[in-house]
């Protein structure tokens, strides 16, 4: 049986070049479908990657109870030291807990194309770099605590105007100079960072948005969480930083991803009709050949399999082509959506997705024609011209 399938398919593929343009319908159909879908998904995938890179399983974030975004959370000045004193937090070399009070707010920016947009300005306190060792300065210097200074991420610098060292950002009660450029490799790169306490004073605010802590080990989350949630004086939610960003990332990219899948699905339906059409034509073009094989004693099943295999081969070729185009056009390109700056991404998982879709389309589009091929009476097919 396997040998028969192999022989019939080999014969089939050898005649494929004779049906080149016909076969291209499937290849182009899938290439267009997958190219469009992965290009659209590169946005949500890139955003999710930027979020997930920012989350570290060795960190925990503390926000006010029930808040699922930092913007909705308020941690009072009185609560912050209580949180920092909880067990499970790693200590710096002076024995002080690595807990950092964060501030988080939107700032208007001018995009490079002249349109107005937003990014996030984040306040880090004295333990900022201790908690986030991935943050490093690539040009200029770090802001000094107590001073009205900002550092800008490399992503923000690439996407927005007036983000060079020496440029000034309008903040309440004055304009703050940018003194340095930082990189983190994650979504923070699209943001501006300054000193929490100085910002708080300038903004006339009395609450932080979150407290970020470095855990003694990823396993100490439970100890830390228990200490905070059982403390009657506090009303907070504790989440592992990686889980937090995974959730926020999924939430904020859900609709974008959905749009990509919906457009992809619509195109796939179009490609499916094209695939059916091509395979029916292929079966009728190969009528004589198939009938001869059947007359020689080859079974109906190997014939049917060879038809489906042809569809799969063409569809997968098209899908990989489309995925390659989407990858070449998008992957790694700096982009933004809303207040987020990130790199578009067409990942390995996306290629796998492309192949899966292609196989599904090919199966749906190949099975009916394959049944026709297998069922066609041999004598009739041999007589047909």
């Amino acid at each position, binding site marked *: 049986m396997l040998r028969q399938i192999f022989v019939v398919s080999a014969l089939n593929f050898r005649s494929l070049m004779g049906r080149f343009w016909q076969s291209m319908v499937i290849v182009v159909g899938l290439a267009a479908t997958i*190219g469009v879908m992965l290009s*659209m998904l590169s946005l949500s995938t890139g955003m999710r990657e930027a979020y997930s890179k920012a989350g570290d399983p060795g960190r925990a974030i503390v926000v006010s109870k029930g808040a699922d975004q930092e913007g909705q959370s308020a941690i009072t000045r009185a609560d912050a030291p209580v949180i920092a004193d909880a067990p499970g937090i790693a200590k710096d070399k002076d024995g002080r807990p690595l807990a950092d009070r964060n501030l988080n707010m939107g700032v208007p920016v001018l995009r490079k194309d002249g349109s107005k947009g937003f990014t996030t300005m984040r306040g880090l306190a004295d333990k900022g770099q201790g908690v986030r060792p991935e943050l490093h300065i690539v040009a200029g210097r770090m802001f000094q605590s107590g001073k009205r200074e900002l550092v800008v991420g490399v992503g923000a610098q690439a996407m927005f105007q007036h983000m060079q060292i020496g440029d000034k950002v309008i903040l309440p009660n004055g304009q703050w100079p940018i003194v340095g450029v930082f990189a983190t490799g994650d979504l923070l790169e699209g943001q501006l960072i300054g000193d929490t306490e100085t910002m708080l004073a300038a903004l006339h605010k009395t609450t932080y948005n979150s407290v970020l802590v470095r855990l003694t080990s990823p396993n100490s989350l439970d100890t830390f969480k228990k200490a905070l949630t059982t403390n009657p004086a506090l009303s907070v939610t504790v989440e592992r930083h990686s889980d937090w960003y995974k959730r926020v990332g999924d939430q904020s990219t859900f609709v974008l991803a959905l749009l990509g899948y919906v457009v992809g699905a619509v195109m796939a339906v179009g490609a499916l009709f*094209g695939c059916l059409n091509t395979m029916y034509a292929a079966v009728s073009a190969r009528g004589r050949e198939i009938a001869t094989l059947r007359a020689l004693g080859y079974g109906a099943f190997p014939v049917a399999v060879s038809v489906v295999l042809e569809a799969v081969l063409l569809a997968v070729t098209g899908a990989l082509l489309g995925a390659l185009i989407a990858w070449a056009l998008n992957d790694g390109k700096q982009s933004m959506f809303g207040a987020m700056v990130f790199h578009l991404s067409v990942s390995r998982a996306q290629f796998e997705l492309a192949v899966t879709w292609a196989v599904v389309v090919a199966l749906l589009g190949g099975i009916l024609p394959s049944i026709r091929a297998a069922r066609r009476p041999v004598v009739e097919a041999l007589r047909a011209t």
Partner: protein
Amino acid sequence: MRYLPLVWAAIVRKPTRAVLTLLSVTVAFTLFGLMIGLNAAFDTIAERARADRVYTWPRYGGAAPIAVAHQIEAMPGIKAATGLNFLPGYVQDPKNQAFVLMVDQNAAKVFGDWVPPDQWNVVWRERTGIVMSRMQAQRWHKKVGDTFTMICKTIKRADDGTTWTFRVVTIVDDIPQIFNGFMFGNFDYIDKAKPLADQGKVSEVDFLADDPAKSSDLAAQIDHTFANSATPMQTITEKLARSGNDFGGLDIKKITFGIALAGMFMVLFLTGNGIAESVRERFAEFATLKTIGFSDRAVTIMVVLESALPCVIGAVLGVGLAAVLARQIPKLMPPTFSMPMPTMSPAVMLWAAAAALAVAALSAALPVLRLRQMDIASALSGRS
């Protein structure tokens, strides 16, 4: 038209191919209609956006003293300014997010095109009155006279409550710029409910300029005036805010045209192949037609018609289907994600017609060329 029976006979000769081609073309044009329609919807919004209406809000969130509104209204060149308070919250479950704009009576001047003046008067009569646009009324299943209750945990109230109760006093038409509809309540209701220290503050000031041509200068002037104050402002004209198909910083025009083009490219291969195959199969027949006196022109028309028929029918069906689907989009999108409803404007239909004809012409080009150059004698004898 007299060639139609011949063309029709050619198409129905292979019914499977005809139906599958038509279905594929229909799907591609559904996507085309939705994409170009979405783009058209953004264009309409940009067009209808008013150049004389300007929005300004505290650059760093929070609230500005209401004095800012008065200060702006007193500036030369400004017709009217209204101070707004945002009331964000939810109905019953945090998943059902709701948003009410709490406005003072100047809103009747600044937003006279959203809510007609007589309807504004109905709102001013009741402190807890609320006006809903149809979409919002539908979403919360409210009619005039109903009570609308929402929960807001982010705005501190003097009585520490979190429940806000309104009475629906009127329901008005939606406007295209606000995709999910809108709700307005009374500024006094929210302002007086806050602790004394928080009263007299606004989340945003919206105003009308006397001269639309000067509104961007006014916007820059306001940013400059408040830059060094306790509440620096961020000002933008409605025109600018709504122009450029702005969608989170993405270039919507490029994306929608790209997708529509990819769909067309896909069907071009399908229809092109179909027609080429059909001509190849009937090569001898075309030779016969030419022999009995059909001109090159007549044969060309027949092939182009055969190629155009599925494209045109598919385009009509596809755009029709897109129009039906577009109506469902606002219902399917989560309320937190706003996207306008694609409109099948005359321009969209023109684009679709042009695309259909282009696909038909490109598909027919090679077969037509072959037929024109055919050697009738060898074609008749079946040698080519």
